[in-house]
């Protein structure tokens, strides 16, 4: 019989996330580091350490970015990329969660699918580019196929870990109060898995953006990736860099957004609430 007093058994899902306690010095250091990097980007080409043809100074990239922002075609491309990203991610999240929960609830499915998942998961999504082109050409569906394939596994694996984490005492409590299978999925299994799902969504959101841009770059499906490709082939080097910067900023925004959602949804979870003095 277990006698231990267990208060803090909830294992952390994925890497530990600390509730922000930044402090002024950290913010200042961060700003200084970024400023230093920007100065370097300006200075290195100006000093002739690298050729300005391939690596234009920051100010010229910034100019190109301003020009881009004024161009309607840029916004269309941005919209295309975001559409591919959001649709693909939504499909992957839905499918990943459904598949994960079903595999968890039906006992034999777990054993039956484990080796197949381990085989399919490591296939790099980009290896499917030829197939995507064969099937869908340069349509949005090509992008979606690659995005969904890459991000689906991120979600599924996290859901599978999450559903394994259900506390037997919580499960027995639910059963003893007559909660049926569906009620237990909703009130016990799902909240238990949610921290993992959130981690999965955050990882998948980043991967989905990478794949959306890659697909556009390689296949030529409309979007920021295709625009980068066009800028490169037409020797518009500062424009190319400007677009790369935009994709970077997108990634940053997506990550910040995902973390905010995570923090809101998991206010009760130990990783967010921290230690509570009782």
């Amino acid at each position: 019989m277990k006698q231990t007093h267990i208060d803090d058994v909830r294992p952390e899902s994925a890497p530990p996330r600390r509730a922000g306690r930044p402090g002024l010095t950290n913010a200042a250091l961060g700003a200084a580091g970024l400023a230093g990097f920007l100065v370097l980007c300006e200075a290195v080409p100006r000093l002739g350490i690298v050729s300005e043809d391939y690596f234009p100074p920051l100010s010229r990239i910034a100019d190109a970015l301003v020009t881009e922002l004024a161009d309607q075609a840029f916004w269309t491309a941005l919209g295309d990329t975001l559409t591919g990203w959001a649709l693909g991610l939504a499909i992957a999240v839905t499918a990943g969660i459904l598949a994960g929960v079903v595999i968890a609830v039906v006992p034999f499915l777990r054993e039956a699918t484990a080796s197949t998942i381990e085989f399919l998961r490591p296939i790099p999504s980009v290896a499917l580019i030829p197939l995507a082109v064969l099937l869908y050409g340069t349509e949005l569906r090509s992008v979606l196929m690659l995005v969904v394939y890459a991000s689906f596994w991120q979600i599924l694996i996290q859901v599978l870990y999450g559903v394994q984490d259900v506390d037997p005492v919580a499960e027995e409590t639910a059963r003893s109060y007559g909660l049926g299978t569906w009620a237990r999925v909703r009130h016990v299994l799902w909240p238990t898995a949610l921290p993992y799902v959130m981690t999965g969504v955050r990882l998948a959101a980043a991967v989905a953006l990478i794949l959306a841009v890659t697909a556009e770059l390689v296949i030529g499906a409309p979007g920021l990736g295709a625009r980068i490709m066009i800028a490169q082939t037409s020797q518009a080097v500062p424009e190319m860099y400007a677009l790369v910067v935009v994709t970077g900023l997108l990634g940053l925004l997506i990550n910040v957004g995902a973390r905010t959602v995570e923090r809101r949804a998991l206010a009760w979870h130990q990783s967010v609430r921290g230690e509570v003095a009782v």
Partner: protein
Amino acid sequence: MDGLLSVSGLRKVYEGSGRRVEAIRDLTFTVDAGELVCLVGPSGCGKTTLLKCMAGLLTPTSGEVLLEGRPVSGPPPGMAVVFQEYGRSLFPWMRVRENVELPLKQKPLTKERRRELVADALDSVGLGDAAGAYPWQLSGGMQQRVAIARALAYEPDVLLMDEPFAAVDAQTRADLEDLVRGLWRDRGITILFVTHDIDEAVYLGERVLVLSASPTVVQEQLKVDLPAERDQLRTRVAPRFAELRTHVYEQIQAAKRGVAGA
């Protein structure tokens, strides 16, 4: 067979990886409606196994458990369980109010009735103003009170308690014991209280069932003839209390040595 809850010829054998463990050999006893019975036994004697069989969470190898004459094959609607590990039994993603209300949603009750039951149950454990808190914002003793409130709101015929106070400090424990006695007297529910603590069993129970060491049988049944009004200070120093606890202690020592009940 009479009694609200009756256990007859219960046997549970765990089989696994070439090992066969007979946790419970042959248990027979009944609990009448409105009784407060304490089950006490040496550690590792299968108390939790027994409780899970009664709660319909485990299927016995043979024998049966009857609740109001009907065999228990799954968790019966007229039964609530308070577990020892309150920290894991309460859901951290729900506020106290929602934790207490969740089981009620499985019953055909109106929203107003549910609210009434929740408020009433929380009031009777002295946590009327903690409804909006999360369990992890409360102390251990308060968390166990929430778990008790959840069981009360469910309006069970039988309340099973599995060493509910083993993980709280001594002072909180005394308070919670008096709370359980009080609830039992006010509400007239039937309580089966499992513990390894002899003093607790004698202090709380109207009757004490002493279990033997594993493989478990009932070593002895003992009527606790202490006054109904019990008090942490006076009851525990009363000569009769000392006699009873000594008797139970001897029985448990005998049980550990494998001697049949006197």
